[in-house]
């Protein structure tokens, strides 16, 4: 093939040491961020050392006329070795093999950064590393790494402009620092105010764009570059979901182990004990919700169990990772896409916001149990990720009140069951609480509201053997935990002939608007009830004080300010908050608001001060505004004629007019006007000011 035109010369090597140093420094915050969020400090340290060595080598090699072919070959081989290592760690169930590959790839490619384009490409790789770290970050502290990265990248851009300008220029200013130049000492300080002003404007603009940008909960997209590889089955199997739109390697397992109920096959209400604050999972959801796992239909008086062990196998929708979850109730409302990241090993239960319609998880089998819970064929290991698409039902009070009591026979049979040892006083209490409640919804609300008045206690007294839980809870202990509140609600409603079931799962957890995660801990495990309404299905109620009485899935929050409480960033400042409380007697947030106000006022003061201290134009620097001085002098000439009450005739020269006026002051004005009109050099500012003073003192000509 004939070459078209001469070959373009290769781009020049980047020889600016400052630029290279800044680019190398900019690669560190993303690495450190990844180590901080993923706890992969070993690879981070190794990659950082490699990065430093690579940048140093690239800098020294840039001075050579050509890049070394051997080095490029070594980089090529090393990259593929790192890729192989990543695949091996995938099979070995490594923590974050893809993140580690990103670290090593950046360190390896740093040995071949010859041109500026290469350096900017390395900044792009750092951005990818930061992206990976951002998807794993859980709190606001990650922002410091992001700010550091952005600041260093801007420094790289600034240094690049500096290098370009100096490289092309034959003349520079300042040429060289002058000995004893006091002005040079003040120059950095004068540049600080505009820089701070720009930083402030940038912060405000960022906050405005962030707050005013809608957040669309995207459906999981299966990228075309997603690979399905067999991962050995067994306890180390993982189910990875392609909700994270990077290159995904999905592991699949054919395990079809025995299904078992969990948290446990039954819920023992006599259990006493607190749960830890260990993080169980992170949930990314655009809407607040309880994370429902399963329910129980049979109450024994001291425990709950699921009598109906029937399950419905769900079919995949393609590529083995999509399941449509059937629902025989009205599934209305908007979509809520939640992604669950399991931190600890979990039973084979799939958590979801009520009501799930689609499940994205890579498993050989997914079933729907009789209690509307989703289950997989094996326990879910830490690191598992899956996505659920739910439909948020709209439970309007008026609609629920009008639902009636025409319950299906299957529902009556399963969810009105009560043991024989339900006491009469329990039944009487139910009757008395709902005497004025005309509908099933009103009854459910009345009983719930009554239960909300009972104190919550994490460690209630042990239940006497042989006693019935609800009777003991309502009339003896009169305090308890969520299972007792939920059981009481269910039993009281069942005694009134309203189908109710106990549901288990997790509460929403703590939300961070910056990370987008709900952090769910062990002590977020919770139990609540669902009451059946014909035509609407199971409607959740929560009778436990301190929780959400009507735990419907909230509307999708597209805007930062959709929910003020949930929009506030969750800062890891527990110790600081406690200290503030102790020292100032107030909560932390008012102090933060006060600090923000002080910062804003301080910025305003700095701006006003800089405005007042701006340097005046040098006096007499007339050459740069010569036109203006000319106009001033000629305007003074005109004004002088008015003061003299005499006007130069059209055919009269200025000197003839001056002779007619016959005043020494006017001669001075005339000479200045001639200079302004005819002389090539612009008049001095001092001259213009002097002439105006003369004009002001003119007397009327005789």
């Amino acid at each position, binding site marked *: 093939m004939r070459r078209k035109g001469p070959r373009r010369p290769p781009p020049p090597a980047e020889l600016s040491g400052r630029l290279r140093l800044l680019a190398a420094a900019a690669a560190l915050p993303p690495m450190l961020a990844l180590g901080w969020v993923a706890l992969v400090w070993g690879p981070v340290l190794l990659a950082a050392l490699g990065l430093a060595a690579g940048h140093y080598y690239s800098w020294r090699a840039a001075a050579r006329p050509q890049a070394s072919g051997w080095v490029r070959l070594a980089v090529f081989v090393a990259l593929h070795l790192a890729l192989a290592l990543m695949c091996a760690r995938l099979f070995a169930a490594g923590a974050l093999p893809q993140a580690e590959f990103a670290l090593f790839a950046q360190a390896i490619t740093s040995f071949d950064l010859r041109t500026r384009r290469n350096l900017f490409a390395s900044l792009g790789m750092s951005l990818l590393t930061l992206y990976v770290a951002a998807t794993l970050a859980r709190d606001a502290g990650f922002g410091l790494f992001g700010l550091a990265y952005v600041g260093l990248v801007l420094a790289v851009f600034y240094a690049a402009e500096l290098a370009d300008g100096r490289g092309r220029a034959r003349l520079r200013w300042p040429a060289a620092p002058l000995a004893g130049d006091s002005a040079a000492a003040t120059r950095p300080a004068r540049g600080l105010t*505009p820089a701070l002003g720009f930083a402030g404007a940038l912060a405000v603009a960022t906050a405005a764009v962030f707050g005013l940008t809608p957040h669309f909960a995207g459906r999981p997209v299966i990228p075309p570059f997603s690979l399905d590889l067999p991962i050995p089955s067994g306890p180390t199997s993982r189910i990875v979901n392609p909700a994270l739109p990077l290159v995904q390697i999905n592991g699949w397992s054919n395990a079809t182990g025995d299904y078992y109920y969990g948290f446990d096959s039954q819920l023992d209400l006599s259990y006493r004990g607190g749960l830890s604050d260990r993080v169980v999972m992170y949930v990314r959801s655009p809407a607040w919700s309880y994370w429902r796992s399963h329910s129980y239909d049979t109450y024994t008086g001291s425990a709950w169990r699921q009598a109906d062990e029937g399950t419905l196998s769900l079919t995949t929708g393609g590529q083995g990772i999509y399941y449509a979850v059937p629902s025989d109730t009205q599934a209305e409302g908007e979509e809520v896409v939640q992604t669950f990241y399991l931190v600890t090993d979990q039973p084979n239960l799939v958590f979801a916001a009520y009501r799930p319609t689609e499940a994205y998880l890579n498993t050989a089998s997914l079933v729907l149990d009789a209690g509307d819970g989703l289950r997989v064929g094996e326990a879910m290991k830490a690191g598992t990720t899956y996505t659920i698409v739910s439909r948020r039902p709209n439970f309007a009070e008026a609609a629920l009140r009008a639902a009636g009591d025409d319950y299906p026979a299957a529902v009556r049979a399963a969810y009105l069951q009560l043991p024989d040892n339900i006491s009469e006083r329990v039944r009487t209490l139910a009757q008395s609480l709902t005497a004025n409640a005309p509908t099933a919804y009103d009854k459910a609300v009345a009983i719930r509201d009554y239960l909300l008045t009972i104190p919550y206690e994490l460690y209630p007294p042990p239940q006497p053997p042989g006693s019935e839980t609800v009777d003991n809870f309502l009339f003896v202990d009169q305090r308890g935990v969520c299972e007792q509140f939920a059981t009481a609600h269910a039993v009281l409603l069942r005694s009134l002939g309203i189908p109710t079931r106990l549901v288990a799962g997790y509460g929403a957890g703590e939300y961070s608007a910056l990370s987008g995660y709900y952090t769910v801990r062990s002590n977020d495990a919770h139990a609540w009830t669902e009451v059946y309404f014909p035509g609407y299905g199971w409607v959740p109620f929560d009778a436990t004080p301190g929780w959400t009485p009507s735990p419907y899935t909230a509307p999708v929050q597209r805007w930062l300010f959709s929910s003020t409480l949930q929009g506030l960033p969750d800062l890891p400042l527990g110790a600081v908050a406690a200290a503030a409380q102790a020292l100032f007697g107030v909560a932390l947030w008012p102090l933060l608001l006060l600090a923000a106000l002080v910062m804003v006022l301080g910025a305003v003061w700095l701006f006003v001060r800089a405005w007042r201290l701006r340097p005046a134009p040098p006096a007499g620097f007339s050459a740069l505004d010569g036109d203006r001085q000319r106009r001033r002098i000629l305007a003074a000439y005109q004004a002088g004629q008015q003061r003299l009450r005499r006007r130069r005739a059209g055919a009269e020269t200025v000197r003839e007019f001056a002779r007619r006026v016959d005043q020494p002051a006017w001669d001075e004005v005339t000479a200045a006007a001639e200079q302004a009109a005819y002389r090539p050099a612009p008049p001095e500012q001092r001259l213009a000011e002097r002439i105006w003073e003369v004009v002001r003192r003119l007397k009327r000509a005789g």
Partner: protein
Amino acid sequence: MKPTPRGWAVAAIALGLYVFANQTQVGWLYVFSALAAALWLCTFGIPGRMLRRLRLARRVNGSALGVDGSAEYADLNPAVGDELQLTLTIHNAGRLPALQLTGADTCPPAPAADRNQPFFINYLSGGQAATLRYTVTCARRGWFTFGPTPLATQAPFGLWSATRVAPVDGPDGLLVFPETRPLARLDLFDRQPAVETSLAQAGTGGEFLSVREYRPGDPPRHVHWRTTARAGRLIVKEFAEEQQPALTLALDLRRAACLGGADDNTLELGIKLAASLARHAHERGLPVRLLTNSRRWPAPVGALSQWALLSYLARVEAEGDDALADALRQVSATPGAFVAAVLPAPDPEAVAPLVNLQRRGLAVLAVLVDPMPFTGDRGLGIEVRRVAGELAAGGVAVRLIGAAPDWERVLVTGEASVATEAAA
């Protein structure tokens, strides 16, 4: 103002992060997307605003005046080979600093390699002025205009770029005189005494011519008292008009007389020779008149000052086809006068009038420029020598000047330089 490729990349990153943020619902990606978008938006307008408040001024050799060769500013006219010190002052009349300013000041008289002077100013505070100084050597004669200076910046991070062609306060132009060199001694002016001659007409000379009656305005000291006493009325002395011999400097400005390259050609050398001859004549106290065959650049009439002559020689260019011989035939054969003809190209037609002037009693010097070093054409070299021979045979003093650097020595001594002989 427009976004740079880097700016487009940042905008694309902002959009890409937003798309991925919606896909993953990662709050931090929304933050970074917003930060990238905010950065792109906040830097918009900064470069243009920086450039808008800049005021430029230029000084040439410390002067802001337009040097046009007039006598008033005579001492400001540089000549070819002289150094020019240019000062460009950039004043930031705004309140905000101006960053990373790039531009290029153009000095037309400078050699091609130095004509464009790119500059860079990293930081200029509000109200501050930056002064850039550089020195160039005038490489060309002529009238050069100083134009506006292009400015550009991509501050602060190279996301947006702005350009502006800024007017510059200062000299509109510069007239560069041709190079002149002192001549040690030219025997042309030694061939006859440069004395004043009295003419048979009344004038202001010192030689007594006659007497006449007094007219109002005659100086009292001119009264001839003896004749006045005899005549009974005022009689004054009358003196003869004196005329000083002048040098008529003839210069061939035909288009065909310009042989060689754009800047290094026979005409340029001829102009240097003519200027140096005129300078030497002025130093000897001789008036100089100019004679050319150019219609577009007609020679000024009468005796010219050195500066007027240099101003003329600075501007002329070769044009037309009129022969110099026609102009030479118009030279009045004033005894004792001098004629120096500078012929940048061989002109056989000029031989006859020059020889004729020589025979009529004028001192004639013919300065011929050898075209061969400029063109490499041996034929022209032969022809110019033939013309020189004919002139010499007619009694005209001839100087054959090549491309030697010491042409003033050759002009004075008549000895060809080694280089010229080798070329011949």
